[in-house]
């Protein structure tokens, strides 16, 4: 009886996980292929392959080569990076706060970077400064939240969430005030707060990469500690997990990765909230699978969303993710509650 149960577990566990993982990998690959192959300009598949070859080998690029190698591919890679970052951070935030509604913007990263971008836009600073100010203010916002939430050496989750809400609201109000003063640039600010991969080049990809790699890498390493935390704070501590340290490192790592991503492409909504939920539904709650697989799914989804954004009148990737993500999330909630 017990042996049978164990076998069944073995078979199901051994097969289902790699199969579903392979599914996600395929999804991501298809996203990259379609994202590179399709666009508002029609480029035949042969030419796409040729462009990739010439790009990789560093040959002279002309015509459609430029579109494929310098515009589409970095845009796709940026989509993968940002989607993966937001999803991993969302998963980690949900884990560390043990709150299914947590998302990477919980502690004020989004409103901080929106304010940073707005300052640069309204002041009329060069476009290249926008990500810099956005990044700085995003990190400043999280720092503020941490300081406000601090209780001696502890960072109690409820105080963190509350402080995050307060910091977010104050910064959003400041952003709105600035927008109203610089009315004619309101659309640029709006575009930023919706998120857009439009002008992402290789340079941007290379700039975002360290944030994503560092933040995401740290979070992946913390997976098992996050699992233990799911038993409850006291239990985790009794098992030897320094919970305060875990919380602080998780929050900082996730905020750095999120800030890096958001600074360059704007505040893309819903990905970080939904993707971890989907992965949890498919693979269970263990963070060792949840975080890496969220990266795969998040990367794929954002590339698909961006593809929709640039080939349909939905126009911005953030609109697509929110428009499709919102109803999907509701459906997910209903499904879960009916089970």
């Amino acid at each position, binding site marked *: 009886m017990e042996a049978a*149960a164990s076998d069944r577990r073995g078979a199901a566990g051994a097969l289902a996980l790699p199969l579903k993982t392979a599914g996600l990998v395929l999804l991501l690959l298809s996203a990259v292929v379609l994202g590179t192959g399709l666009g508002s300009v029609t480029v035949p598949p042969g030419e796409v392959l040729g462009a990739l070859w010439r790009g990789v080998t560093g040959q002279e690029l002309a015509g459609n080569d430029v579109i494929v190698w310098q515009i589409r591919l970095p845009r796709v890679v940026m989509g993968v990076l940002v989607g993966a970052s937001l999803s991993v951070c969302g998963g980690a935030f949900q884990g560390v706060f043990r709150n299914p509604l947590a998302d990477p913007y919980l502690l004020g990263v989004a409103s901080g970077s929106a304010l940073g971008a707005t300052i640069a836009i309204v002041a009329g600073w060069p476009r290249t400064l926008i990500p810099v100010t956005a990044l700085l203010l995003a990190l400043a916002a999280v720092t503020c939240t941490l300081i406000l939430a601090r209780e001696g050496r502890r960072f109690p989750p409820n105080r963190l969430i509350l402080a995050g809400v307060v910091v977010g609201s104050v910064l959003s109000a400041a952003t709105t005030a600035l927008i109203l003063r610089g009315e004619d640039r309101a659309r640029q600010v709006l575009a930023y707060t919706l998120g857009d991969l439009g002008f992402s080049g290789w340079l941007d990809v290379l700039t975002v990469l360290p944030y994503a790699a560092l933040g995401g890498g740290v979070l992946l390493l913390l997976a*098992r500690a996050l699992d233990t935390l799911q*038993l409850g704070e*006291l*239990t985790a501590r*009794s*098992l030897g*997990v320094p919970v305060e340290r875990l919380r602080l490192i998780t929050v900082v790592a996730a905020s750095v990765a999120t800030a890096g991503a958001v600074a360059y492409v704007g505040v893309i909504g819903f990905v970080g909230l939904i993707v971890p939920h989907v992965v949890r539904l498919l693979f*269970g*709650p263990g963070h060792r699978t949840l975080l890496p697989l969220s990266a795969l799914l998040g990367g794929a989804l954002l590339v698909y969303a961006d593809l929709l954004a640039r080939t349909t009148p939905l126009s911005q990737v953030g609109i697509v993710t929110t428009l499709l993500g919102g109803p999907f999330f509701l459906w997910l909630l209903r499904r879960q509650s009916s089970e």
Partner: protein
Amino acid sequence: MSSPASSPTSSPDRLEAHDVHVQAGSFPAVRGVSAAFAPGEFTAVIGPNGAGKSTLLRALVGLTPVTRGEVRLAGRPLRDWSRAERSRALAFLAQSEGLPAAARVRDVVALGRGAGDWRFGLLPRSPWTAEDEAAVDAALDRTDTRRFEDRRVSELSGGEAQRAALARALAAQPRFLLLDEPTNHLDLAYALEVVRYLRCEVAGGLGVVAVLHDLNLAARADRLVLLHAGQVLASGRPADVLTPAHLHAAYGVRVRVVQDADRLLVIPED
């Protein structure tokens, strides 16, 4: 107050509280408790609400800082133990912290192997070994939870979930298991079942310290520590602790204590 256990001498293998004080904010939750707990012994900590039972338990595991006095494990002050040693030796089952609903039973139990030897407490150092696997299997077997090791926690009954939690605590192969009201929210049958499983472990040499509310359940323990207002009112064998005088002093309620076969029964008198 005068029972032998309240003036312990340091001895190997014992978990001891020496004049332990714990301050909870401005409130002195535990005020000079001395007690000793031995392996192979089932001690129940009883007392009215607010007597300091949970606080004492947390101080014994090292989850709450002791403001005065000290806790010793095997003769060595607990604060000198490394996080790794401590988390291996002392397992703790919290009162209200449930198991993650979506997780599989076996995965939850495996988490009980603990993070003691992890780098910074956060990064698992060694890979999962056959020894770990065996410990998890053993914990599942001893709590009869192996049958549903693949089920999700949300699919378990209350009693099954509590046994899974017990298996999680046992997976670390601790010397002492400290439980904060493990039978709370459980039907009588399940509560008795939990005590039965604990009894088995005690027979195997585990030291069990459990905060219990139900005095008749506590009467099944080897020893009792009765707390009142942060201090030990009485401790020793159930027959010595569960007297109408002690219970009236602690709970302010008149009770009758009757011997039924080999068990004590506490009956409140209205």
